[in-house]
């Protein structure tokens, strides 16, 4: 167990694994997760898979909103573009391994297009623009029937790589987990290297950043590009996992959900994206058990369960922003610091 920080070089400070202990912890976590998947039932694996997909999407949004400070209320739009592109490409005969990055790149193109206004706008106005973008994508998915089959949604072929088909929950885990690990590793490396530092500088004060020689145009657009690539990949994976997509999967609500993930998890932290994605995915599933407990005493609770879910959701978002803006990551760090310093709390 380490206690406190002692670093003698810059290299040490930006190391991915700060100590050997952390390395062991991460390794144990991975082994534990794989082990859990091998023994648990389909439902648990299903949730783990959703967490992994959400992690990829949340990482993308966090890179853009948490690290670069560009508010995006249209993340669901990128997921939708990725999901539909990949579904269509695989349907057209492209192998999944090519279709997945291709879907990511199509989302990237759209992302850079949406990013262009960000060169002129910021804060509120950017939020409204991205919001409109998400809405337009949802509407196109609904109306372009020849491509998307409209509101009925379309069936998606399961992912298959080199003849292996990932059509069960358990097999899909072994597809999505490595991708999620790659996504986390790439994001972690991005933010500890030049682009990440530039993004953070832009978030903290864009004018100062430009004075320091950071090209706003390039770095803002690249943040949008990376973010929408992550979103597109998450959407594509989601489509191949569910084997069905429809416009109602990518409503404004999903964008709000992703925003909630990075807020609850912790803005501007990689670990926070994972925490938030897991929390916001597991929470609704846990809430499903609530009606069973209350069935006898409060029948209304069961009947109107979806609404209570919404209310709790809204409350969680508001309370986290008001009370713990650093999110779960902040709580996690406080707890860790407490034990590291114990019994000398200061």
């Amino acid at each position, binding site marked *: 167990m380490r206690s406190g920080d002692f670093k003698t070089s810059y290299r040490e400070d930006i190391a991915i694994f700060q100590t050997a202990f952390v390395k062991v912890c991460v390794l144990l976590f991975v082994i534990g997760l794989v082990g859990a998947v091998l023994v648990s039932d389909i439902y648990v694996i299903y949730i783990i898979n959703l967490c992994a997909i959400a992690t990829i999407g949340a990482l993308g949004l966090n890179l853009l909103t948490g690290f670069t400070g560009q508010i995006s209320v249209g993340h669901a739009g990128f997921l939708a573009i990725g999901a539909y592109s990949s579904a269509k490409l695989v349907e057209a005969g492209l192998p999944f391994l090519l279709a997945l990055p291709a879907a990511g790149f199509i989302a990237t193109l759209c992302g850079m297009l949406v990013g262009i206004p960000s060169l002129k706008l910021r804060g509120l106005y950017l939020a*409204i623009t991205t919001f*409109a973008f998400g809405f*337009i994508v949802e509407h196109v998915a609904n109306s372009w029937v020849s491509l998307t089959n409209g509101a009925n949604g379309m069936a998606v072929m399961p992912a298959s790589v080199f003849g292996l088909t990932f059509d069960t929950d358990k097999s899909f885990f072994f597809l999505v987990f490595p991708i999620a690990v790659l996504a986390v590793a790439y994001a972690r490396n991005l933010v500890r290297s030049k682009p990440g530092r530039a993004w953070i500088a832009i978030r903290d004060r864009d004018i100062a950043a*430009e004075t320091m020689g950071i090209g706003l145009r390039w770095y803002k657009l690249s943040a949008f590009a990376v973010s929408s690539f992550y979103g597109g990949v998450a959407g594509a994976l989601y489509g191949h996992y569910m084997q069905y997509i429809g416009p109602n999967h990518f409503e404004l*609500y999903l964008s709000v959900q992703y925003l909630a993930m990075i807020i609850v998890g912790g803005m501007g932290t990689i670990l926070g994206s994972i925490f938030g994605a897991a929390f916001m995915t597991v929470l609704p599933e846990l809430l499903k058990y609530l009606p069973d407990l209350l069935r006898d005493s409060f029948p209304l609770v069961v009947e*109107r369960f979806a609404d209570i879910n*919404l209310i709790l*959701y809204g409350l969680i978002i508001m309370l986290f922003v008001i009370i713990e803006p650093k999110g779960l990551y902040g709580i996690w760090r406080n707890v860790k610091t407490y034990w590291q310093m114990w019994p000398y709390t200061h």
Partner: protein
Amino acid sequence: MTGTLENILQLTISGLAVGSIYSLVALGFVIIYKATDVFNFAQGELMTLGAYVCYFFIIQLNIPIFWAFLLTFATTALIGLITEELFLRPMMGEPIFSVIMVTIGLSVFLKGVIGLFWGYMIKKFPSFVSEAPVSIGNVAVSPAHIVTITVSALLIIIFACFFKFSTLGIGTRAVANDQDASLLMGISVRRIFGLSWAISAVVAAIGGILLSSITYLHPSSSFVGIKVFPAVVLGGLDSIFGAIVGGLIIGVVENIAGGYLGGDIKEITSFVILIAILMIKPYGLFGKEEIERV
């Protein structure tokens, strides 16, 4: 050719009716934004909630319409006050992103509340005027539309006077202009903040009532709150006059686009306009420009 002209006139008039409701909801937006610098993503939900509260008083409690209206206004004003006190007050001085997230959370929360109490069945709101259309020249006009336009116009005049002449209204404008300075001049900024939310909630409720009396009552009506964004941005976020003009323009353009290009296009017209405005003239027609070069 007269046929086309009449058609356009017809579409324009029903567009004006919808547009005047947009204007009202946009007015609610602007009041909050002007005074408190909060862009309220939950305005649509406030609107729907107001309509449901009114429905509750008129249909479920059978209160005479006049008293029901008064009760509705009182209730929604209270809701506005409480919302401000509980959720927005702690956010004073926080980064804009956090504030936006709180209002997004608020919209989800209110959506849940509406669903919880009134469910998702379409409800028929009592109509206050006859539904038979009146012909003016060759154009058929529904009395409900006329009432909507009149009420909106009246309200807008009332608010214009309120902000121009009353002490509270002038105080609100002062706070919008400079919070510190108005605090020094003895204006209670906290009270103005609460007041703006209360007024905005009432205006939203009136918009909701008008909207549901020309259409129907359903939780998805809060969608109008989203469609008002383009109106607010077009008019300029902090301009009351702009909100009204923006609402009317969006209503008419949307209706004409819907009439000629089909319902699908109608839904996204306003958002395409929105993005175009943001690219060309981000502070809208009448908004105050924040001069800061990036």
